[in-house]
C-alpha cells in the first residue's frame, strides 16, 4: 500500500521554517523542474504522472483549455495500481468546477471586488472538505491513495507574505501528513513547484519543487519526470 500526497506550491523553505516534520518525513529535498519553461500546475502534474515532459503538448491547448487536459490511466503509473483512489489530481481527475471558482476568486480579489477574507473562505472550506475525504479514504482498502491539495498555492498567491497565515496552512497540511504517516505505508509527498513572496502576495518559484519520502529512496534532486519509474520500482 502506498500514499502520494500532492501539494501544489509547497515550498521547501517554509516547510523547514515552520518545522513541518510530517511533511518533511524521513528524507526530503528539492525536485528539478528546470526542463520546463515556466512552473505551470497542469503541465507539471501531468508530466509527473506520465513520466515525460508534456509541456509542449499541453501549452498547445491554450490557457483555458489546458485545464481540461486529462491523461488515461494507462498513460501513467496509475495503471500499475488497480485498487487506486485518486482525487483531484490535475491532468487526471481534477475538479474543474473548483478550479473555475478559484480563478474567479483571484480575478475578483485583484480587481478589489472582494476582501482577502472573502477570497480565502471558499478556498479553505473546499480544503477542509477534501481533507475530510482524504482522512476517510485513508481507512479504506487501496493499493494507492493519491490526493492533491492546492490551498498552499491558491491562498499563497494572495497571502504568501503573511507568515502567520501560511504557517496555519502548512501546519494543517503537516497534521494531515502525520495522520497518513501513522498508517506506516510507503509515502511520497510532492509539490509541483515552490513559491516566492512578492510583497504580501506569492508567485510560483521556478526551477524546483519539493519531495519527501517515508523511506530511504536515494533521491537527491530528481527530475519530476523521473519519479514515475521511481514509483513503479519502489512503491508498488
Amino acid at each position, binding site marked *: 500500500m502506498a500514499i502520494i500526497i500532492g501539494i501544489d506550491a509547497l515550498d521547501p523553505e517554509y516547510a523547514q521554517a515552520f518545522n513541518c516534520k510530517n511533511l518533511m518525513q524521513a528524507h526530503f529535498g528539492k525536485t528539478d523542474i528546470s526542463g520546463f519553461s515556466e512552473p505551470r500546475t497542469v503541465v507539471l502534474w501531468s508530466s509527473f504522472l506520465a513520466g515525460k515532459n508534456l509541456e509542449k503538448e499541453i501549452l498547445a491547448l491554450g490557457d483555458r483549455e489546458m485545464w481540461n487536459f486529462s491523461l488515461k490511466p494507462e498513460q501513467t503509473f496509475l495503471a500499475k495500481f488497480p485498487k487506486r483512489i485518486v482525487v483531484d489530481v490535475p491532468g487526471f481527475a481534477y475538479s474543474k468546477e473548483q478550479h473555475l471558482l478559484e480563478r474567479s476568486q483571484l480575478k475578483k480579489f485583484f480587481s478589489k471586488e472582494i476582501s*482577502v*477574507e472573502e477570497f*480565502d*473562505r471558499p478556498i*479553505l*472550506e473546499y*480544503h*477542509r472538505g477534501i481533507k475530510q475525504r482524504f482522512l476517510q479514504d485513508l481507512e479504506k482498502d487501496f493499493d494507492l491513495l493519491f490526493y492533491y491539495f492546492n490551498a498552499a498555492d491558491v491562498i499563497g498567491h494572495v497571502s504568501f*507574505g*503573511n*507568515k*502567520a*497565515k501560511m*504557517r*496555519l*496552512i502548512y*501546519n*494543517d497540511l503537516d497534521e494531515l501528513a502525520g495522520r497518513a504517516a501513522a498508517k506506516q505505508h510507503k509515502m511520497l509527498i510532492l509539490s509541483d513547484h515552490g513559491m516566492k513572496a512578492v510583497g504580501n502576495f506569492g508567485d510560483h518559484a521556478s526551477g524546483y519543487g519539493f519531495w519527501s519520502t517515508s523511506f530511504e529512496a536515494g533521491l537527491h534532486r530528481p527530475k519530476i519526470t523521473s519519479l514515475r519509474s521511481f514509483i513503479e520500482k519502489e512503491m508498488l
Partner: protein
Amino acid sequence: MKGKKESEKENMKIVIVGHVDHGKSTLIGRLFFDTGSLPQGKIEELKKTCEAMGRPLEFGFLMDSLEEERDQAITIDTTQTFFKTGKRNYVIIDAPGHKEFIKNMVTGASLAEAAILIVDANEGIQEQTKRHAYILSLLGMKQVIVVLNKMDLVEYKQGRFEQVKEEMHKFLDKIKVKPEFTIPISAREGDNIAKRSKSMPWFKGKTVLESLDSFQVKKREASSALRMPVQDVYHIGGKRIVAGRVESGSISVGEKILLLPNGTETTVKGIEIFLKPGVKQAFAGQSIGITTNDPLFIDRGNVVCSENSKPSVGNEFQANLFWMAKQPVKLNERLSLRLATQRIGCVVSSIRKRYNSSSLELLGENAEQLNETEVGEVVIKADKPVVFDDFNDIPETGRFVLEKGLDTVAGGIITACGA
C-alpha cells in the same frame, strides 16, 4: 490597559525558557494578544482563516504577525518585541536556544531581569527543562516565575499541578533557584495569563501578568562597586573619549578611578552621553563616554573601576562551567575567554568535578574532558591577566563565555580567584 502614562512607563526585559515543545511561542502569542499588543487587522484575518479551516486560533502563530510588522517598520529595533501592561512595557528577549541565551546574557547583549520557566503539565519536567533551569541558576536569575502550561490537557486538575510543582521545586532547590511564583496556566485557552482561570478556581495566586508586574526592574545600584568595561576609545573634537557601559555602581565627574589590568590611576574630567550635555554622574546600565584628566594608554577590554573596591586581576580563576558544544572540551585545549569586553586566549587547566546538568549527578573527578551539557568545576588559565569578580559579588564581571573559533561553546561563573 489603564495605568501609567506611556512616557512614565519603565521597561523590563524578560526571557522565556523551557523545553522547545512546552508552549513558549503560544505563551508569547497569548501575552501579546491579551495585552492588545498585536496589530488588530492581522489578528482578525488570522481568526477568520482559523474559522474557515475549522481550527482554534493558534496563538503560537501570532509571533509571525509581529515579525512581519517589525520587518516592515524599519525604524523599530528589530531585536526587541514589546508588550504592555498598565504598569510597564515588557521586552521579550529572543532566546531561540540555550546557546544564544547564555551568550546574550553573559556578553550583556541583552540582560534579562526576569525569567519565565515553562513546563508542560501533561508531559512533565524534561531534561531540557532542567538544563534551562540550571542556566537560570548559572546566570544568577533572581526573579523567576514557573508556569505549568497545558493545564487544559490534564483537565485542570489541582493534583497534577501540585505533583509537577513539587518535582520542579525539588530540582530548583538543589540549584538554588527560588521561583517567586508557580502558576498553572493554559496559554492556548488563556487561563491565568491576563485573566484568572474559571476552570481552576482552586488556584488563588497571581496571574502571569500580575506576577510580572510585581517584579522590580534592575535598580541603579549606586552603592555597589564601579565596573565599566571599555568598549572603545574615540577621538572626537579634540577629546579622547573612553566609551563603555557602566555594568555596576556609578561614576561621577571628579572621581578617582583605576584602570585595570595595568593599574593606572586618574580622575574623571567629564561624562559624555549622546544628546545629554552636562551629565555629572552615570549609573549601572548606562552607556557613556568619559574623558580623563591624564592621557592614558587604554584599550578595549580594560575595566574602569573605583579605587576603593577593586576587582581581582590574575591569570587563573575557578569557575562553574556549562559546556554546550557537541565536541567535548579536553584539558589544555585552546579557547577564547570573553568576559565583558575582554577577549583573551585561555585553556581549561583542570576539571575537578563534572556533573550531569539535568540530574545533577556527579559523573567524575579530576576529569580529562567535559561533554556536551555537562557542568564542571574547573580552573581557567588565561594567557594574560584578566579583570574579574566573584560572581556572587558582582555578576556582571563574574560571568563569562568560552569561544572556539566563531562558536560560543560554554558559559560560566567565577567562584574564586586563583587555582
